[in-house]
């Protein structure tokens, strides 16, 4: 833990990529193998099972620090991070013990999961009592999970590649998929697997297009596709292996039993990139919410299967006949993809995402306007000559999304932000008008500058009507324009609607609460019934 704390101090104390890279590389050269495996696992978002609940942690920490629960919670609201709050409120270590390694710590945490509560409490309190604050913080982070140490996966991959003398793209590929640090050696993890198993490729990611599309040059060098609003995924079909992966590297094969026939239908040694959509009989896919109902479930009931059948719209072909063809130009990969899908037996739930005619940027802009009718969010622009690159690389692939919907709403609740913005009110709840009432309908917490947040914060403090812990109810007076990507019916919400990706577009100082939008005007944006 001492070594990890030292690494974290460097990573946390710098914004320079070069400094982070060299600290990570040095760590990968010097740390024991088991610790390296755990570091790689944590930095690639693999989280161990939680041995202790956060409720237990806060109760035990408050007790060990001699604080009433309410004061612990006030502190947490200011710090914004549970692991850090605990590390800070506990008294300094009463004794020092030899610092355990990362792998050893993870092993003892995993053992705790099977112990009775008193034993778990005793073990955690004993660990806290012997750790300095920085190690305590990391220890708590390991328990609460989701710990990336401010390092992008790409950077970790580069450091590991450098430390082991391998190609970074190859390392990125090998770290994909399903592996656990306790059941593998570093050599095995980094060795090229015969046939590749079910391991996916790192996804190529597009950047948002901000400039005018004609800045991209000759339309003939580009291909356009619809940008679908589903789950980006990869289908891997290799001899003896079939897997469906989400972009978050989650194995979702079992969630989509419709795709099982592809295991036999696809030629062995095929890897496809595409979008999973719920698509019934209509000309457009079902809204994202239909798909969402399937994601949370381990198994999919027949009723849901019938109501929201999944279809895979393929974008790309990365592996054909067992060969990695990611370096082949996109236009050629696309030709091979079309030929492959055309040769599949009828009835398999897969299609190639169609190309959109691209003769000129102006006509394409008009086509884009129709995206919403097609159930798409906009267009994707891909350079015909582009390889299937690793991660996000600007220049070859662009998302050209539709302008979002907007609504004017009034702020009714404000909550202080977390972490970097712990001092400011940054999380707001907004209301629209429903008859004579103000109806809460959306939360948003980004889109203003730091200076604007500071100004709103001062206003909030001077216009608080009520306080509930960290939340303040304020005078309904400040009007904001919110942007959002989509709108759906939602019986779970008081307003009966749910917005997709709401965020603050701008502060409308020119508008009063009398001028905000109404529930009716918002409901008018709901997709027509027939499509749902």
């Amino acid at each position, binding site marked *: 833990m001492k070594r990890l704390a030292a690494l974290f101090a460097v990573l946390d104390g710098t914004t320079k990529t070069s400094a982070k890279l060299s600290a990570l590389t040095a760590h990968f050269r010097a740390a024991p193998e088991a610790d390296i495996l755990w570091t790689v696992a944590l930095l690639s978002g693999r989280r161990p099972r939680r041995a202790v609940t956060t409720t237990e942690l806060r109760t035990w920490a408050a007790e060990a*620090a001699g604080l*009433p629960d309410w004061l*612990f919670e*006030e502190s947490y609201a*200011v*710090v914004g991070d549970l692991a850090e709050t605990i590390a800070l409120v506990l008294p300094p270590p009463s004794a020092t013990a030899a610092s355990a390694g990362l792998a050893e710590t993870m092993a003892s945490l995993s053992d705790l999961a099977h112990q009775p509560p008193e034993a778990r409490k005793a073990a955690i309190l004993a660990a806290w009592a012997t750790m300095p604050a920085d190690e305590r913080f990391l220890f708590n982070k390991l328990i609460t999970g989701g710990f990336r140490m401010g390092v992008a996966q790409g950077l970790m991959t580069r450091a590991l590649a450098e430390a082991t003398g391998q190609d970074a793209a190859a390392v990125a590929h090998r770290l994909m998929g399903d592996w656990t640090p306790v059941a593998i050696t570093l050599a095995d993890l980094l060795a090229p697997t015969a046939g590749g198993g079910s391991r996916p490729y790192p996804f190529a990611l597009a950047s948002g297009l901000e400039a005018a599309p004609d800045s991209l040059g000759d339309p003939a060098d580009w291909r356009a596709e619809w940008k679908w609003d589903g789950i980006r995924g990869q289908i891997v079909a290799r001899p003896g292996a079939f897997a469906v992966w989400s972009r978050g590297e989650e194995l979702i094969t079992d969630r989509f039993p419709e795709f099982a026939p592809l295991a036999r239908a696809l030629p062995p040694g095929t890897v496809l990139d595409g979008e999973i959509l719920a698509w019934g009989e209509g000309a457009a896919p079902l809204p994202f919410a239909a798909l969402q109902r399937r994601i949370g479930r381990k198994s999919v009931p027949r009723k849901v299967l019938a109501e929201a059948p999944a279809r895979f719209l393929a974008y790309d072909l990365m592996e054909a006949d067992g060969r990695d063809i990611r370096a082949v130009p996109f236009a050629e990969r696309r030709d091979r993809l079309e030929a492959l899908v055309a040769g599949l037996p009828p009835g398999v739930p897969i299609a190639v995402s169609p190309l959109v005619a691209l003769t000129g940027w102006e006509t394409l802009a008009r086509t884009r306007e129709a995206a919403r009718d097609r159930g798409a969010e906009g267009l994707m622009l891909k350079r015909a000559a582009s390889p299937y690159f690793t991660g996000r690389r600007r220049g070859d692939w662009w998302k050209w999304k539709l302008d979002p919907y907007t609504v004017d709403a009034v702020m009714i609740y404000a909550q202080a932000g977390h972490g970097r913005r712990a*001092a400011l009110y940054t999380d707001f709840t907004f209301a629209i008008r429903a008859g004579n009432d103000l109806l809460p309908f959306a939360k948003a917490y980004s889109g203003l500058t730091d200076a604007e947040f500071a100004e709103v*914060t001062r206003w909030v*403090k001077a216009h608080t009507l009520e306080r509930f812990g960290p939340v303040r109810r304020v005078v309904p007076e400040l009007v904001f324009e919110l942007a959002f990507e989509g709108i759906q019916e939602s019986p779970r919400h008081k307003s009966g609607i749910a917005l997709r990706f709401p965020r603050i577009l701008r502060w409308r100082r020119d508008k009063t609460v009398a001028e905000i939008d109404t529930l009716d005007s918002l409901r008018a944006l709901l997709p027509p019934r027939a499509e749902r």
Partner: protein
Amino acid sequence: MGQTPLLTFTDRGIHCPAGDFYIDPWRPVARAVITHAHSDHARPGHGAYLATPGTATVMRHRLGPIRVDCAGYGEAVTINGVTVSFHPAGHVPGSAQVRVEHGGEVWVVSGDYKTAPDGLSEPFEPIRCHAFISECTFGLPVFRWEPNTLVMARINRWWAENAAAGRVSVIGAYALGKAQRVLAGLDPSIGPIVAHGAVEAVNVALRGVGYALPPTARLADTTGADLRRALVLAPPGAVGSTWARRLGEMAEASASGWMAIRGIRRRRGLGTGFVISDHADFVGLTDAIRATGADRVFVTHGYTGPFRRWLEDQGYQAGVVETEFAGEEADVGADQGPDQAGDHALPTEPDAEGGAIRE
């Protein structure tokens, strides 16, 4: 105990009706008793000031020609029949608590204070009283300071590493107080110590009334290899400004109690944060309040809501004094909040003092 309390809270500040004077008032008054020279406590425009000699000298430098009477620590002054005396607050050199006694009743106004010694300021002395008005800038249990010697050792180690690598070390610290206590704990054998103009002006004022500070150089006189080994003390606003850009390759650090919280540290964007404060931490506040023997406590500046409730849990009769700042500044502190330290417009050298001296 009469009908009117000995001290009352008005929109001009803390008022003593019997003696007709104010303590750290924020609007112009005829007679002001000042705890210390920070700009949120010592405002311009009062008819007459009463302060310790250390506070008076910095105040004169900051506010120009003002009428100041001085009283040393423990020296009783009578104002309209009310006895007033200053007692060390340990906050910055010359800082004081104000003890007010009338008709057998004693109130103490803490001003800003800290209980742990910093190697320079006159150490805090608890004063027995019936009612205590306490700041609580860091009145949450997440704030817990390490001993000064430990933090200073860490700062010196950081400086030595930078000096060995040929990087200038730059520490952002308040021009009055923080800069001098850091200065007092630096190891001059590592390299030259350079003071920003705003810091040096306070150094000169304090040396003039007998505070022993290590020698400091001006940036203009420090060049080449000397500069590469130097440690520069500058107000927080000057770090990262055009003034700092002429230093070449450097390592930057902030010295503040707020650096205890990672989110604030990261928001400031400065690489290294040294947790070093001139305010009492949570344990310090709790201990200091207990030592006064007061059963009535009023809290001001900082986490007043939770800290008041904590005091009530401990059996005190506790209230909150709203200050002029409470309504308009960040929750993390009406006093020395991170916003004043780094996020405001960056002052340049000649006028760096305005925002930077405030604490």
